[in-house]
């Protein structure tokens, strides 16, 4: 069959297909597309014929463009996240955390281990804190949690309107740290390990120092509430980073690039959960932890309840087979 005859006999179909594609690409009006897959396959056949018969480049290139556009519409990856956010939060995320327990355990040990051990060290040998944190920062930190000041958080003077400022600040600061901890895992996990240990040491040093100088009450009652979400989130972000690194160190039977791609697909889901955790943490930190009205005892109780909540959530949510769909 000559090219011009081929073109004239199928031109109408191609134009129709192109119009359908325009509609689909604009994302509106998904009606009248029941025949789309069939038309697409028809078009693929036309392209194959055109190539096989040695038709001209113009015809083949334009058919190729149509096929590519059709391919992009027919085989688009449906994002499971956006469609099923509730299911993800209620079941899939804790399931994923349990599935990746090795990395979570390793990251948790690095982060909480360095935090607790350095806090104890600083509490016993107070001068150690100056090895890690410059003296002026220590005194700044100290004034923040001074029981006499009456307000908590980053500034001594803090009114209700400032809660909003701090909310924004916490979101930016904490999620930024979580993202860094995750991304640097690409260096064979070393970056994540570094950030986990480093942040653990800093927080531990501050905690140990403030407890030593007698500001323990203000400090612990401030941090215990949001710490449940914030610290867990950092550890989970580190676990996601370690997973990336491990895929490069021990890719198993896959090529490294492929192993990395598969690991990254899971890690990014962990990071989505981490972001939810950090949003909650920022909210608690700005609006509950900074309140000075409740007794410290109340804060400890609420804080303990929040820790228990996080632990129960990660350990038990989504265990039943037909968890909320």
């Amino acid at each position, binding site marked *: 069959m000559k090219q011009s005859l081929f073109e004239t006999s199928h031109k109408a179909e191609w134009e129709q297909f192109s119009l359908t594609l325009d509609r689909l690409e604009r994302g509106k009006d998904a009606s009248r597309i029941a025949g789309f897959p069939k038309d697409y396959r028809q078009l693929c056949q036309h392209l194959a014929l055109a190539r096989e018969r*040695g038709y*001209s480049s113009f015809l083949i290139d334009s058919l190729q463009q149509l096929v590519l556009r059709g391919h992009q519409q027919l085989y688009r990856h449906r994002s499971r996240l956006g469609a099923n956010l509730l299911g993800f939060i209620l079941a899939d995320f804790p399931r994923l955390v349990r599935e990746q327990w090795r990395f979570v355990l390793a990251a948790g040990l690095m982060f909480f281990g360095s935090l607790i051990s350095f806090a104890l060290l600083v509490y016993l040998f107070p001068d150690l804190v100056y090895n890690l944190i410059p003296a002026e920062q220590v005194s700044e930190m100290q004034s923040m949690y001074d029981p006499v000041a009456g307000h908590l958080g980053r500034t001594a003077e803090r009114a209700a309107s400032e809660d909003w400022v701090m909310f*924004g600040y916490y979101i930016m600061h904490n999620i930024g740290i979580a993202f860094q901890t995750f991304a640097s895992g690409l260096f064979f996990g070393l*970056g994540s390990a570094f950030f986990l240990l480093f942040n653990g040491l800093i927080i531990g040093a501050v905690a140990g120092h403030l407890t030593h100088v007698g500001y323990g009450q203000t400090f612990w009652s401030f941090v215990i509430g949001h710490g449940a979400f914030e610290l867990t989130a950092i550890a989970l972000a580190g676990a996601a980073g370690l997973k990336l690194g491990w895929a490069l160190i021990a890719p198993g039977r896959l090529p490294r690039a492929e192993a990395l791609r598969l690991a990254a697909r899971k890690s*990014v889901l962990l990071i989505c959960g981490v972001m939810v955790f950090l949003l909650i943490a920022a909210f608690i930190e700005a609006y509950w932890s900074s309140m000075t009205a409740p007794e410290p005892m109340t804060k400890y109780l609420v804080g303990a309840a929040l820790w228990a909540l996080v632990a129960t959530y990660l350990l038990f949510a989504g265990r039943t087979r037909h968890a909320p769909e």
Partner: protein
Amino acid sequence: MLETTALPRKATLSPPLDTRHQVETPEGIDLPLRPAGLMVRALAFAIDLGIRGLILGLLFIVLAFLGKLGAGLGSILLFGVSWWYMVLFEVLNQGRSPGKQWMGLRVVQGDGTPIGWSASLLRNLLRFVDLLPFGYFLGAISCLQHPTFKRLGDLAAGTLVIYREQPLTRPQLPEATPLRPAFALTLPEQRAILAFAERQGELSEARAHELASILAQPLQVPAPHAVVALNGIARGLLGPA
């Protein structure tokens, strides 16, 4: 006669000279994608960086009048613009941030399908690593050594930055009386003759003659008539208009 250019059986094919990346669809069609190299991507990124700077500058001026509330909003905005600008544009605007749109690029999955939330988030979070130790050093190295120019974020997310398809205009074939070639043409020869006729509008007359005269001997026509003979064969292959 023409020398045969067909490769002997089992000869290893030499890698193609261009950077096309073939994607095979489930229908058995090979779709060529054209990956974008380091330079054009760096330019696109520079444009995006400028736009982001501009947005933040303007917003901070506005927010400065709002006092404390403005400071809170400002840090959320800074976070949003620095971490989410690329992701939002890539997912909601068919893989094109403004810079990429300007340079005629788009991001797709490795198999040519549109990019989704998780892949886009991943490739943009790992940008942090590509930036290290300074000025996209690692990203540039990775981009330069990879056959389809992937930076580390692209490797992990399985994404590809390609040139967007430009709309084609129908070329005008030169007028000629249809001819039947004196011998059977192979498919590549047929394609080459058609391409010669389609591209003649872009070639100078002297160049067209130079190219056509290579074929004067096998076509058994005097060299000055080779262009007309080739156009005639092309017309004949194409069929009546």
